[in-house]
């Protein structure tokens, strides 16, 4: 299928028509929570003005609190699995970096050997319609970690804003049939294509790049680098970077006890929290901020790469923007990749 075009004024009508068959998740300027992705009941709630949300859309598949099952004390500890509906979903307006993060989460939760029931239930039957970033922020660095503002990775359809229209790139068969079933699309003209290419070129020029080619070699022998002691020094050990990160997937499992019923839940956890690795005996293999910061960086840029051949970072820049002490992961990477790491 060739590239298609949809007029901007029609985009909401198109989405409107999908409500019958899909739950629609989209960027919303929420009165309470600000810029977020959430399930929308009407296209009026969708906001395509801001570049990206504050919290990543990972919680659509991997909510901060998930009820794994409940148990009853009345009978012989009968376990009651949660009800999870099979409704088809559309994640609309997702940015390419966040879509790429979904493919990373897939690698964690759907390994073939062990599959996360809840993640799969929430992510299966989902279509992703992404919007390329023609105006990236200065904190965006997707190109450094293997993405780009018009990346199709993890998307079923990619839309590129060309002013009056969106040029739609059907990426998968699922995406194609969604477009085919709609009367709002028409075949893109050479002029549409030219505008699209121009927008993409502009975006690619705007987005910052820096060289991390030395990173692998540095991290491979970098566990004991003196620089770790320096990197973490200003870190306050909060969970902002990990909670807002679209690829961070660590969690805790615990029980909530009621009189007759209780629940086993899982909640997001953070490698930056001291209790994350603390044994019941009191021993802790990562006792200080230094080890915990090293784990975060090494996991994203070395361990995950060793297991999955990609960085566990999509360069969305949320951790850069929202760190309360301006601990900038880009600077960390630059200093590690360059000679700032010090001698090992």
């Amino acid at each position, binding site marked *: 299928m060739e590239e298609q075009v949809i007029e901007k004024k029609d985009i909401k009508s198109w989405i409107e028509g999908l409500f019958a068959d899909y739950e629609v998740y989209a960027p919303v300027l929420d009165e*309470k*929570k*600000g*810029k977020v992705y959430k399930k929308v009941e009407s296209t009026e709630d969708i906001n395509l*003005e*801001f*570049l990206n949300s*504050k*919290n990543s859309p990972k919680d659509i598949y991997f909510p*901060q*609190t998930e009820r794994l099952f409940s148990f009853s004390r009345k009978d012989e500890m009968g376990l009651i699995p949660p009800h999870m509906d099979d409704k088809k979903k559309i994640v609309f307006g997702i940015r390419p970096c966040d879509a790429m993060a979904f493919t990373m989460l897939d690698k964690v939760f759907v390994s073939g050997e062990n599959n996360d029931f809840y993640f799969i239930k929430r992510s299966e039957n989902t279509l992703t319609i992404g919007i390329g970033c023609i105006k990236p*922020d*200065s*904190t965006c660095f997707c190109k450094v970690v293997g993405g780009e503002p018009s990346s199709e990775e993890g998307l079923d359809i990619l839309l590129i804003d060309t002013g009056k229209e969106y040029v739609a790139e059907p990426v998968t068969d699922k995406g194609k049939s969604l477009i085919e079933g709609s009367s709002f699309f028409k075949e893109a003209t050479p002029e549409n294509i030219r505008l699209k290419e121009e927008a993409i070129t502009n975006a690619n020029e705007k987005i910052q790049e820096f060289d991390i080619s030395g990173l692998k070699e540095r991290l491979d022998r970098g566990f004991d680098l003196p620089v770790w002691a320096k990197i973490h*020094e*200003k870190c*306050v*050990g*909060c*969970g*902002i970077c990990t*909670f*807002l990160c679209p690829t961070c997937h660590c969690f*805790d499992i*615990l029980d*909530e006890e009621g009189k007759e019923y209780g629940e086993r*839940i899982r*909640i*997001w956890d*953070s490698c930056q*929290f*001291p*209790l994350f690795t603390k044994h019941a005996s009191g021993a802790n293999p990562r006792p200080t901020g230094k080890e915990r910061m090293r784990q975060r960086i090494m996991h994203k840029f070395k361990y995950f790469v060793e297991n999955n051949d990609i960085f566990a970072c999509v360069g969305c820049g949320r951790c*850069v*923007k*929202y760190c*309360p*002490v*301006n*601990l*900038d992961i*880009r*600077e960390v990477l630059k200093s590690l990749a360059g000679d700032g790491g010090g001698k090992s």
Partner: protein
Amino acid sequence: METNENEIRLTVKKLFDEDKIDILIGYSPGTLPLRTSPVFLRKEDDVEVLVWNSFCENTLSNYLKNYKDKRVGIVAKGCDSRLINLLLLESQVKKENLVVIGVPCRGVIDRKKIDKITGGMEVTGSEEKEDGILIFFDGTDKKVTKADILHDSCMICNYKNAVSSDIFIGEKEKEEKVDPYNKIREMEENSTDERWNYFNKEIEKCIRCYACRNVCPMCYCQECFVDCTDPEWFGKTAEIKDTKMFHIVRAYHMAGRCVDCGACVKACPMDVDLRFLTKKIEKDVLEFFAYEAGVKDDEPPPFTTFKPEDPQEFIR
């Protein structure tokens, strides 16, 4: 401000040269517009990285707990100097290990207010001018007066100069006493339901990242009650039933110990109004005990001490 910046550098250099300190906690340029970042200098590091401007939003006294055995120099705003007094009173730092470099402060800017001015467009650059801040965004620029973008805490700050310091930089900022409780008084007028609803609406945003706790110099417990699992005082989820408890107990722990430096709200990624609780408690403490946290270095917080004249209406 620029002259003060220079004087800070000279002072620090001298402290290192005279071997008075092992480490200096100050501000360095940030990697983003409108930001600075905490920096930790050792003797061999260059003092030229030190800055002092309206973007020095972090509460540096939070880091003192990491350097208990070191001789530390610290750049201290009014709020930080009060916090240092409290940390001294609560035996968290040793006076003999500390060189407080007091600075006069005209308040720091609130990035979230600027966000509103630019309509959410990213600020691509900023310059501090004598009478305001020049911000660049969306291919244009705009000058904003500082009063419009000052942090709420700074707008009602009565201690612009470090209340106690070993070295004071530059000239003292003029302090005109303002009533810091206007907003709280307005809130007190509201019905219980209205106040409860406001509280719930704010707390609902919380993602329980603990940034508010972790940036607070007065939160130094070895094991925080929220982390404790045996006993588990309340649930661990980020659902409001649990986060509500966290914020209520957190605020109460701050009673008589909060100087309203605003670190918690500045750090909060979800823009939760955390100050209305602590500010209300601050007002109550002032009314009941005539106590302002950290203003004097010999007056411990009321809940760490006992005086016969303490109010005791609650015992009936």
